[in-house]
């Protein structure tokens, strides 16, 4: 447990001192929403598809942010120290992912509803959208981290990370957008939100081990 806390503190301190880098995925999300709004069809259509667009862009922003998750640690040798000392590895992985989610996922939970409003979605969808993002973005982080761990040994591979992670994000995307669409239609969004919670529980259980295994394999050279 103390390893997880030490890892979270370390990663947050690093993020604070490399401000620009952490903001990139959020800037991407904001810009892409803006472009979508400008290039989108009529206001009614735009409002209707806004929750889906927000979810798709949130998944893309998360996948893009994942490339940097282990890059610094690989280059500076912190990862090999982690592999040597942290046995088991998962508490440190959990700490690392929590720090990353605080910087990328949590802002998306706040920015998502704002972006939906900017796309003129009705205010009825906002609770389901925000709650869905709160349950869904950690899952996206867990899945992205598996891809990032597998590619940690091959240097810069941001597109590869996205290519591995995005197909695995599809269930989260479907239930997340489904919850918001259900709310927009005046229906109960609870089933979709429960599915999101179930996916999160599964990802939180399996991903830290998968990430640890991926990192060990990636450093075998």
């Amino acid at each position, binding site marked *: 447990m103390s390893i997880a806390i030490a890892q979270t503190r370390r990663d947050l301190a690093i993020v604070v001192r490399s401000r620009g880098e952490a903001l990139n995925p959020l800037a991407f999300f904001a810009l892409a929403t803006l472009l979508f709004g400008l290039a989108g069809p009529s206001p009614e259509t735009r409002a209707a598809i806004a929750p889906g667009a927000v979810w798709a862009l949130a998944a893309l922003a998360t996948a893009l942010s994942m490339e940097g998750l282990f890059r610094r640690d690989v280059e500076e040798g912190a990862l090999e120290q982690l592999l040597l000392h942290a046995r088991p590895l998962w508490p440190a992985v959990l700490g690392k992912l929590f720090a990353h989610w605080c910087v990328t996922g949590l802002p998306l939970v706040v920015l998502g509803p704002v972006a939906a409003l900017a796309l003129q979605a009705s205010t009825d969808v906002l609770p389901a959208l925000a709650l869905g993002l709160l349950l869904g973005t950690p899952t996206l982080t867990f899945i992205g981290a598996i891809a990032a761990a597998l590619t940690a040994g091959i240097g810069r591979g941001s597109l590869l990370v996205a290519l591995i992670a995005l197909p695995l994000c599809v269930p989260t995307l479907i239930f997340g957008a489904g919850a918001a669409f259900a709310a927009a239609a005046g229906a109960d969004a609870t089933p979709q939100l429960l599915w999101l919670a179930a996916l999160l529980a599964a990802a939180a259980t399996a991903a830290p081990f998968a990430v640890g295994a991926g990192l060990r394999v990636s450093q*075998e050279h």
Partner: protein
Amino acid sequence: MASPQTEPLLSIRGLACSGGRRRLFCGIDATLRPGDAIEVRGANGSGKTTLLRCAAGLLTPHAGDVRRAGGQAPLYLGHKSGMSSLLSPIENMRWHLALAGAVASAAACGAALEQVGLGAERHDPCGNLSAGQQRRVGLARLAMSDARLWLLDEPFSALDAGGRKLVLALIAAHRAGGGGVLCATHEGLNLPDAQVLRLPL
């Protein structure tokens, strides 16, 4: 049953490794007992680092067997410092100690950094330090470590005469306390009573 005082800290049997398609070495045998030191010598590219990484457990060897005593993680000081360039020496030290399961106060870390001549720089980002100073942060790790097995990859690199003296003093104190050192070096450290392992065999 060997007692903990004489049980080898590290024993390597028939170790073979390849780098890419090239075979680096094979049939390496070595035993490191408490108080011992082994110098691994060889030219650039002869596999010194690979041997150390195998000994650390970071690499799975092609063949052979590596045993380390007591389940404790060794201290590995590699080419990469393991220090974040954005964090200060003190923050880096505290993370390293937390990994090793030790709890150390900022004051204790500060004292260790003082010992390696970084008292004034303890709060500067490591990225602002010179290469030699960054190596010295690694030496502070040696000073605070309770690992019995040290694996040092070119511990002299980038260090000035004072730094080298410090490395030798730390190694001597570690051996006197029952620790063992496996050390890769191309120039030779000339440690007293050290076994020398030359690569390639």
